[in-house]
């Protein structure tokens, strides 16, 4: 079954001057979109899915990652 997966995870400046994580997703229908996560959320999901860095999120299923939010 097709599912949304992480295409890229890059850091970017956030509105509040802190660093955010921009996660680019490829959805089931082929459309790509981005979700921006703040530091707390990003670190939580990385920990919960066993990713050691942002690069380690690439290729993972989004529904697995979401369990950490």
């Amino acid at each position, binding site marked *: 079954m097709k599912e949304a997966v992480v295409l890229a*995870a*890059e*850091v*970017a*400046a*956030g*509105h*509040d*001057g*802190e*660093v*955010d*994580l*921009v996660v*680019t997703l490829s959805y089931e229908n082929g459309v790509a*979109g*981005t*979700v*921006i*996560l*703040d*530091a707390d959320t*990003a*670190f939580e999901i*990385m*920990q919960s899915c066993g990713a*050691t*860095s*942002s*690069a*380690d999120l690439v290729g993972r299923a989004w529904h697995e990652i979401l369990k950490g939010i």
Partner: protein
Amino acid sequence: MFDILIRNGKIVDGTGASAFQGDVGITDGRIVAIGPELQQEGRRVVDASGLVIAPGFIDPHTHFDVQLLWDGAAKPALEHGITSIIPGNCSLSLAPLKADDRKTLIGMFQQIEELPPEAFTQAFDWTWEDFAGYRAAIEPSLAVNVAPLVGHSVIRLWVMGADAQQRAARPDEIVAMQDLLRECLEAGAVGLSTSFVDVDENARPVPSRFAQFQELDALCAVLGEFGRMLQIVPEFYDTDITIARIDQLAELSLKHRIPTTLSPVFDNRQSPNNVPRTLARIEEQTARGARVWPQMQTRPIDISFSLLRPSLFFARLPGWIKVLRLPVPERMIALRDPATADRLVADTGEDGGERLMGRLVVRGGGEAPDHLVGRTLGEIAAERGEVPARALITLSLENDLSIGFLAANGGHDSTERIGPMLANPLVHIGASDGGAHLTSFSTYGDTGYLFSEFVRKSGALSLELAVRKITSDTAEIWGLKDRGLLKPGFAADVVVFDPQVIARGEERPAFDMPGGGMRYVRDSIGIDTVLVNGEVAWSKGSYSDSATGRVCELT
């Protein structure tokens, strides 16, 4: 005889029309004459030779609500040419507010504005509960004009008490909120602000986020009685949700015949389709007749961090993440451990972090020693005989981790991309957040940056268009009566500046908040004189003691 004659300047009148050489005559706080070589004299003459004479700039997104109680000039906004401000954004205003709810609101304000506690306990007497009372408290000492929004969160708090942060409103409570909003609008509020994003000091959603759509719809019906603005903070971190909010705003705008605005909208290379998709939807909804104005800031976003809090600056460095997520005492032990520090330095690559960290700048305002402030980590590291990654660790340990580092221009920083966006007639230049984020970064000088970066450097906007975007366009969008143009009969809000020089100064810490509290500010560059309602409020580097600001009349 005029009260003031501004002579021999390049007049950029705010309409977008071509500049022309001439004089401006002012009497009784109003512009009374504009033209070449006016024949009347002035009791006071401002020589504008070689300078531009323009309408005062209007900042549509600020949080000066509290500061105005001890500083009617909203410093340093005024010296940047800002003559009118709109506070009360993001669902938060200082009225209406029952005395019992002050502590709750202070927590929310401190979260967003980062004001020191003394700002609320020492700087003013809290004399009001209703909106008219707040207006009366600020009005006598205003040096800038103010068009205050009323915050949805405080309206909820007044009507629902603690339940405002727990549940949806009942129908009778929605009616009470409508009555309260109506009272605020009758007292001069320019509109209603709400937020779908902000949190309080305990990371709980602010009250407005508990509202269901029918509540917002009912409040917009009241805005429609007055034709007033709805401002929202959308879920700007998600393009699709932002577009859904644009659709929602469009429906409210069309149904209730009100203007709406959303802020912030900003550009990052990492999500390059965000702004184009947002603006495409704005264009579609505008074509339907909706009034939905996306606000975009001019300034780039700087990243700042210290090792006190885990930052995603280190998101690609697993070793650093592991150490920085430890509790602070254990984190310091780990950073002091030579083997751990060696591993962290090695993680940054063969260049010892030169590429990643070498251009970081040590920030002032915290615990950083003065001799390091403003210097790059690369320079400091070389001086210490260390690589940048090692210097970042040792400097942090030497200062109990309370030393801040700045990565300038971390986002919203592509002049080539942002220039055309700012020039787009559907984009509302704003979102400065003036008076907020005090200890994180400076929110002043965006107008200077507009001219230095997007007029002089890139040419994305003509001088005339840039002036129009931050004067008459803003006045028209918000319904500010007789402001935003150099035109006979209009209020004499005027800024005289050098178009070849105008810019924003370097960010610097200032300890001028109540109780000696720190904030980051930027000085103005190239602003010669600022007049508010016909009186000189700032000239050649100094503020006057004028207090001619007003709560703006609305159309």
